[in-house]
């Protein structure tokens, strides 16, 4: 397998006033991802999806089990894995193009080469006219596109996306989903995409992994065999609605538990 997770677990220690509390967010997560496939991980809020993505990236380390990319254990962030965050996390003091160049600075590229690569990716997300703007001058959808260009510019083998469209309005989200599908088809990266939006997962992914609420476990692994390019027809297909209902049923029980727990985090 290209990317392998082997019974991965992660526990956080919370410092309370008088005692410490252990919070098990992930337990026994095992799955593999084939090269070039698009996997969505779908689960209720607080099920440890984002933590899982950070573990795959190497920003955090698992307490149990291990994660391997091409058979090699993940111990630190690498430019082999590009991350798109839930909030764009662009540097406000850098122009759009300089933000896209962030990851290129650690690679041994000449300035001109880095610039032309950043320009190429900015063009692919349709923002070449905004290269000299500052992030705060862009709309939420544009900021998220810059984040995507920044992650793609380092040419990673795996693209990790942490609810990248979660904070956007519905129309922008759909447009960006279509754009992401187009970019992915043209570049065939391996993608791990975190979302709580079932439709988003079904529209984009080859495979939807459904997680339960805390402690996060895998409760289902559903293949989505729809022809590509999918575009809008797939959203309207009866199979789409059927799969959506199936996943919603799986999530439902966990979601209610999570809602109750959110009152006392």
């Amino acid at each position, binding site marked *: 397998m290209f990317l392998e997770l082997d019974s991965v677990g992660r526990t956080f220690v919370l410092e309370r006033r008088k005692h410490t509390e252990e919070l098990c967010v992930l337990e026994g997560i095992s799955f593999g991802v084939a090269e070039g496939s698009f996997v969505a991980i779908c689960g209720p809020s607080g099920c440890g999806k984002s933590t899982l993505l950070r573990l795959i990236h190497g920003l955090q380390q698992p307490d149990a089990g291990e994660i391997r990319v091409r058979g090699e254990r993940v111990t630190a962030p690498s430019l082999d894995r590009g991350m798109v965050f839930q909030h764009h996390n662009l540097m406000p003091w850098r122009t759009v193009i300089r933000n896209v160049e962030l990851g290129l600075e650690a690679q041994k590229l000449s300035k001109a080469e880095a610039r032309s690569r950043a320009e190429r990716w900015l063009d692919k997300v349709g923002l070449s006219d*905004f290269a000299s703007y500052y992030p705060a001058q*862009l709309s939420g959808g544009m900021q998220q596109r810059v984040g995507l260009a920044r992650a793609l510019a380092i040419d990673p083998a795996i693209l990790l996306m942490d609810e990248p469209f979660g904070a956007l309005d519905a129309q922008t989200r759909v447009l960006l989903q279509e754009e992401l599908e187009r970019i992915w088809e043209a570049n065939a990266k391996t993608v791990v995409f975190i979302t709580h939006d079932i439709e988003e997962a079904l529209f984009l992914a080859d495979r939807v992994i459904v997680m339960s609420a805390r402690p996060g476990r895998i409760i289902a692994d559903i293949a989505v065999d729809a022809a590509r390019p999918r575009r809008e027809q797939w959203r309207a297909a009866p199979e789409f609605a059927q799969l959506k209902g199936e996943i919603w049923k799986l999530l439902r029980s966990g979601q209610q538990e999570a809602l109750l727990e959110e009152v006392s985090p």
Partner: protein
Amino acid sequence: MTAVAEAASTQAKPRERWTDNKWVQRAIVWGALLALYELLAIILGDFYLASLEDIVSGFGQIVEEGRIPTVLTSLEHLLVGFALAAAVGIPIGVAMGRSFVVDQVIGMYVRGLFVTSLAALLPLLIILFGVGFRFQVAVVFLFSVFFVIVNTAAGARAVPRQLMRTAEAFCVSPTRRFTAVVLPSSLPYIVIGLRLAVANAYTGMVLAELWVGVGTGGILKNMGQNRDLPKFFAMVLLITALAAFSSYLIRVLEKRLMPWAKEVRAA
């Protein structure tokens, strides 16, 4: 132009009246204040307040008497002390803001001296440095350095964690993270620290000179003792104007260093 710029320009453009001009507004307020002052000066008489005409002629006298070079020497002390305060204060502040250990070790001294009346230390400083150049510079330094440290530390502490994590995710090395994230993010705080510091540097400069009766402060002391009010007021106004101008220069520097803040405001 682009959609963003268009949206911004169509959004807020109410019809401008001549009273909306900030210089018109200032002229009204300042004019009223000056008239009020002049009235007060006439009522109280020239034993307590100098009238505006007297202050203007007092300024002429200062120039004639050759007081300006003395002021320039004082400014030189100020500049050296302030530059030292910035050069020492910014690194210490950043270290305090980014390192728990440094904050624990030196934080209490900084906070302690920050609230201490530094004027009380003047006799000690005279013992240490005499009454010359080194003393003047030391007082200016002490009066300004804590504002730089405290504000810089607050800025370095407030660096968004997500941005640090983002830099880490894109394999930006720890040293590069420092220049690429920590410094630009703390810059607005550093500039505020410098502006507060420069105002206090002037206080320190005058106070140190008053104490030992030299330089600009010495002149002020003499003028006060001789009840030479027109020249005294002219001198005070000159120093106030210089302090305001210094603060303005730092604001200009701020705009040069942080173009993103300006562009964001414009949008």
